[in-house]
């Protein structure tokens, strides 16, 4: 482990860590379930950034796709389905400062994308070179995970498919409306 990490790395590590903690605190203290869910999405994005900084690029990607993308959408969908959000807290029209901050963040993100388009493969964007992962650059960030997942842990990987099938069947069976007298679905 390199102990003398660059300052850039350390600052961002602490930044994302503190943002994650702040978002988690906001998540626990919000009254509205919708606001809580959105703060939890913020926690997950910050954790994804930390995963990428800790050489787990693939985990960071599926953190955003599966957790922030799929699971939280299911949560929000159920909140909406059960009509639990408090409409008075959910006004989507922000004040002047909110709009200003949103605009500034948007401009900053656009500038970052522009800079990244002009730059050719920064050294910091290379695949992980952590010696623990056995010379990763030739296989990329996904290959290191896939190698272990499809050889050592193949049985567990196949068993997760059964788990998911059971979960799907269970969710459908539980979510279905009970029709005790046949043919009279509500």
């Amino acid at each position, binding site marked *: *482990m390199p102990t003398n*990490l660059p300052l850039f*790395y350390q600052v961002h*590590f*602490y930044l994302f*860590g503190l943002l*994650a*903690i702040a978002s*988690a*605190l906001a*998540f*626990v203290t919000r009254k509205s*379930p919708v606001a*809580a*869910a959105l703060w*939890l999405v913020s*926690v997950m994005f910050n*954790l994804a950034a*930390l*995963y990428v*900084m*800790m050489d*787990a690029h*693939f*985990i960071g990607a*599926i*953190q955003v796709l*599966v*957790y922030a993308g*799929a*699971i939280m959408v*299911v*949560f929000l969908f*159920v*909140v909406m*389905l*059960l009509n*639990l959000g408090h409409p008075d807290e959910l006004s989507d029209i922000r004040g002047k400062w909110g709009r200003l901050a949103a605009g500034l963040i948007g401009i900053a993100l656009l500038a970052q994308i522009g800079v990244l388009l002009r730059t050719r493969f920064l050294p910091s964007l290379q695949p992980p070179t952590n010696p*623990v*992962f056995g010379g990763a650059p030739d296989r990329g960030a996904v290959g*290191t*995970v896939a*190698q*272990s*997942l499809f050889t*050592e*842990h193949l049985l*567990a990987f196949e068993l*997760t498919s059964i*788990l*998911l099938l*059971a*979960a*799907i069947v*269970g*969710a*459908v069976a*539980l*979510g279905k*409306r009970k029709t005790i007298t046949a043919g009279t679905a509500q």
Partner: protein
Amino acid sequence: MIPEALALSAVLFTIGTIGVLTRRNAIVIFMCVELMLNAVNLTFVALSRMYGVTGQVFVVFVMTVAAAEAAVGLAIIIAIFRHGQSVNLKNINLLKG
């Protein structure tokens, strides 16, 4: 950076536990459980930097289990809501003697 990541993981897990113990909305409690799972994932990823890629494979499994748990748990919550028109745990006391 591993000690910091482990400390952050502990803090997030504690916040999730506090949420589970203090909130009354069943869906928010489920989200707190997701936060606790995320904290554990952070531990796995941090330690995988030291002990090899197996930690990241475990994170994949944890995410799968979390997805399955969310699907079944939310279906149960919907069933409870149909039964009692509420997801507040104060009103869910069928198992109380």
